[in-house]
């Protein structure tokens, strides 16, 4: 054959079919993705439900503070209490009492004299006075050694025996076998020694059974003091009990340490402990509860139950979980007894820090409002009582408090009034805090928030945020979807479904689906979940791809039919002849 004939074809048909298929796919995508709510519409919907909780945005903003602020600054152990009052202690040698009183009054200058005095008989009177000054001077290791010696078994005023007797008495009283505990004047120096020892061990990052006993025993002994003073059954003494304990030998009302300091040190000890792993039986005993409170009433219990389950896979969080457990007991007892929050700046800040740690992980949705409220109120207590913090500790305390207030304000949609707290900021910290405050102000109103999440961002703000803008806007969209989902959950079915669709359509690919929206979708059922999914970018993309594939198959089929039809009414004889005439090759 001199030439190769070609079957007649109609490229226009192929082109038209291709265009139709692409148009169908594009139309599917646009149709499913259109109808995205306008920011003004969302803003007006959410305006009545202000202030709105925004967890994701606050978490994102928190990361901007992290390089400049250290959360550990908020874990402040209570230092050793004031020195004893030697003249008020029965049975002490006058000369010795005078020497201790005089040296204690000299401040750190009195250390050599106190060391001499302590060397002579090694009792707790000189020991407590010396230890406190050593801590003040920064000689932590020496103080730790001193306290360890004081708490060892010995002949002169053995604190070790007192502690033992006190604990036995507490146990016996709990079991219903009354046994007189040691007197208050014996318990007090034991409590002071234990508290001081615990303090220096926290600073030294100690671990081990003895360390935890040092932190727990003074709390138990304090309950014995309450028993003495109020003749209350020990097991009726609530966790978080209130006790102001004057130094040994001092009259009641003399400034000393409080039970809050003891609880604070225990919780701070757990928060700062690394590698803490309790034996299983102790863990079970610690986390066991005779009650099951609902999340709104006792959110920390919900957190405890959740985090308990994570211990196997994340053993490094055990210390924090024990901190949650102790904070939960303390708050529950106090709030149930209508005693209010512990009026202690360090303890309030520490428990607020515990809640902050809880909020960093996944918290059951039901517990979030109560957790946020408790944290907000504890921070208010810490601010109110900040004057109780010694001057030398104030900068760290202020920074920690400012940080938590800023983050909490971001979550709660409020303005964080930092005032004097910001005076302790470094320039970098000021800049970071200022940026966070700026974006919080920008997104505080729902309309502004929706506009930032869905619309165009102010160029100035965009420049300030730089690379942080994209993940922050993603967090804004997640929070917006969560807020709409929560709002939708309170509406009747037709509106609920529409709002669920609106919430779903806000999210871009890669945005976190908030639990509130996930729960709402589960409630709505499979069909609605599918419909909502189709409106998401992934769903719309999948639908468009399916339409494209179907379109291609249909177009191929149609092209075949049209070709068959065309060739039915065509003469190949003529076609070949024409091609030959045209010189087709």
């Amino acid at each position, binding site marked *: 054959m001199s030439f190769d004939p070609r079957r007649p074809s109609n490229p226009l048909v192929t082109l038209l079919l291709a265009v139709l298929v692409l148009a169908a796919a594009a139309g599917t995508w646009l149709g499913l993705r259109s109808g995205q709510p306008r920011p003004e519409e969302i803003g007006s919907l959410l305006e009545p439900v202000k202030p709105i909780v925004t967890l994701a945005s606050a978490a994102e903003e928190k990361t901007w503070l992290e390089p400049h602020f250290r959360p550990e600054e908020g874990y402040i152990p209570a230092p050793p209490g004031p020195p004893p009052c030697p003249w008020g202690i029965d049975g002490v040698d006058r000369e010795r009492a005078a020497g201790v009183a005089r040296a204690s009054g000299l401040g750190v200058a009195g250390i050599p004299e106190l060391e001499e005095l302590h060397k002579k008989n090694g009792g707790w009177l000189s020991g407590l006075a010396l230890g406190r000054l050593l801590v003040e001077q920064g000689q932590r290791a020496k103080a730790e050694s001193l306290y360890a010696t004081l708490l060892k078994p010995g002949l002169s005023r053995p604190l070790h025996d007192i502690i033992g007797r006190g604990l036995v008495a507490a146990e016996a009283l709990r079991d219903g076998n009354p046994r007189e505990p040691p007197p208050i004047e014996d318990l007090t120096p034991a409590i002071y020694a234990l508290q001081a020892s615990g303090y220096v061990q926290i600073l030294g990052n100690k671990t081990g059974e003895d360390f935890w006993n040092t932190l727990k025993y003074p709390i138990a002994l304090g309950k014995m003091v309450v028993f003495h003073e109020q003749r209350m059954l020990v097991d009726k003494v609530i966790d978080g009990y209130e006790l102001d304990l004057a130094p040994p030998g001092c009259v009641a009302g003399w400034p000393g340490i409080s039970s809050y300091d003891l609880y604070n040190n225990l919780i701070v000890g757990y928060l700062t402990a690394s590698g803490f792993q309790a034996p299983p039986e102790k863990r079970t005993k610690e986390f066991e509860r005779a009650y099951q409170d609902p999340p709104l009433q006792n959110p920390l219990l919900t957190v405890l139950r959740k985090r308990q389950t994570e211990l196997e896979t994340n053993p490094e969080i055990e210390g924090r979980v024990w901190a949650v457990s102790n904070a939960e007991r303390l708050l529950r007892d106090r709030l149930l007894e209508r005693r209010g929050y512990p009026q202690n700046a360090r303890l309030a800040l520490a428990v607020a820090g515990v809640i902050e740690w809880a909020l960093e992980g996944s918290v059951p949705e039901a517990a979030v409002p109560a957790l946020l409220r408790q944290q907000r109120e504890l921070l208010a207590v810490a601010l109110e009582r900040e004057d109780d913090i010694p001057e030398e500790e104030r900068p760290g305390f202020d920074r920690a408090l400012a940080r938590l207030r800023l983050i909490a304000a971001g979550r709660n949609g409020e303005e964080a009034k930092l005032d004097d707290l910001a005076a302790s900021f470094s320039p970098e910290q000021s800049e970071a805090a200022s940026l966070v405050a700026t974006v919080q102000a920008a997104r505080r109103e729902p309309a502004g928030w929706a506009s930032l999440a869905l619309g165009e961002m102010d160029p100035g703000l965009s420049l300030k945020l730089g690379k942080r803008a994209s993940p922050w806007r993603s967090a804004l969209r997640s929070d917006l979807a969560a807020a709409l989902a929560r709002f939708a959950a309170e509406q009747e079915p037709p509106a609920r479904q529409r709002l669920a669709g609106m919430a779903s359509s806000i999210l871009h690919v890669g945005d976190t689906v908030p639990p509130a929206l996930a729960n709402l979708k589960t409630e709505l059922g499979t069909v609605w979940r599918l419909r909502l999914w189709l409106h998401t970018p992934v769903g719309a993309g999948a639908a468009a791809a399916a339409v494209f594939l179907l379109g291609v198959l249909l177009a191929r089929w149609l092209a075949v039919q049209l070709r*068959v039809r065309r060739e039915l009414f065509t*003469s190949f004889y003529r076609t*070949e002849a024409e091609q030959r005439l045209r010189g087709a090759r």
Partner: protein
Amino acid sequence: MSYCPTCKKEVEGDICPTCSTPTEAVKEKRPVIRRLSGTPTESTGAEPVPFSPPPEPQPEARERKPEPGPRTREAPPPPRPLEPGVGRSASAVSPRRFEGEAELEAFIAQGYEIFLVAGIAGVGKSELLSAFGQDGFLGGFQKRDGMVMATIPRTLQCHPIHFGNGRKGLFVDASGEDFRLLYPDAHTGIGIDEADISFLRLIAKRLRGLILLVELERLWDERLHAADPSHAKQVQILAWILSLLRWLTLDGRYNQENNPIKFTKHVDAATRTMTKRLKVPVQVLFSKADQLAGYPIPQGLQGADWLRQGSVSERKLFPLGENPLLFTYHCLRGLYKAIDVHADNFRFDFAHSLVTRKGPGTVADPDPCGVALAVQWLLDPCWSSSFTPVISTRRWVALQRSLDKVVGRGRRWTRLPDPKEISA
């Protein structure tokens, strides 16, 4: 007696009375097919030269014969009373199995798709296949003076073809004589039974396409009918072949033992009640179209002559300008209806494998026209795809008729439209 190379038969004289081609001297005696009575004899052509060496004899294969009925070789069929003039086909002493059947079976076993070319003797079946011969592959066609020699009766020529996409295809070319002999015509006195269609049954197993060749000149020129009655009966023969293939594909059951209904009547009755049709594409080609230009279409075939005003003018055929479907619809209504009854997908077209000079019959232009595209249409994978079912031809025709009515072109369905000019 001389030999006409065009008509492939022995004739008297130096010029063939049928096609006016110069005859050749008969070089040697050729075996003659004997009939019982009344049937014309025909030469079978030169010595058989098979396409490829036959495979090693396989005793089981040679012994095996498709037996759909319960009849066994040990128990010969009960004798049927022969009607006058009815006899057996070909040589009474030759085996019933065709030469090449074993080869065909082997191809089928290897998964080849079968495409059958059917038509009476001399319409150009082998020439068509030769014209489609693909470059780089064995041709296997014996030629004389540039034209393919006739296929030996009772021989199946198997021509594998290359699809290029993993499909395996095979064109099967049988002698036109064999197709003619399948037609149960009382006038010729030839009857068939199930055994006679064994090769068709084999082909039907993997049939994927069918080419039916019709030579219009032989069909319409009554002067040629006397030499070979099959010329006039091309349509009936092809319709019957189609009917057989339809029956074999969709049914194929016949109990020959003590069955008062003759085989052919059984097939006829069965196909009349069938609702399904052959799905394989059927390409009907009017062969030797180069010789049809200006051929007068017989009166009464142009459709609705009585509607024309004045005298009916002679309409000449112009293959290059005709619409083949409309041409068949108006001028070969019997053929159109037969194809429409038995097949779902079909088309009509003209073709020539080579151009010969009318008088001497020598080759003027060896290049075919209308062959390549027609065969490509047949080989299109869309016919065998289960994912793209094709709308049947009758539906397309019905749709087109409705559409033509709407747009004012309905007239072309009442009478044959005039041919179009060909443009370069």
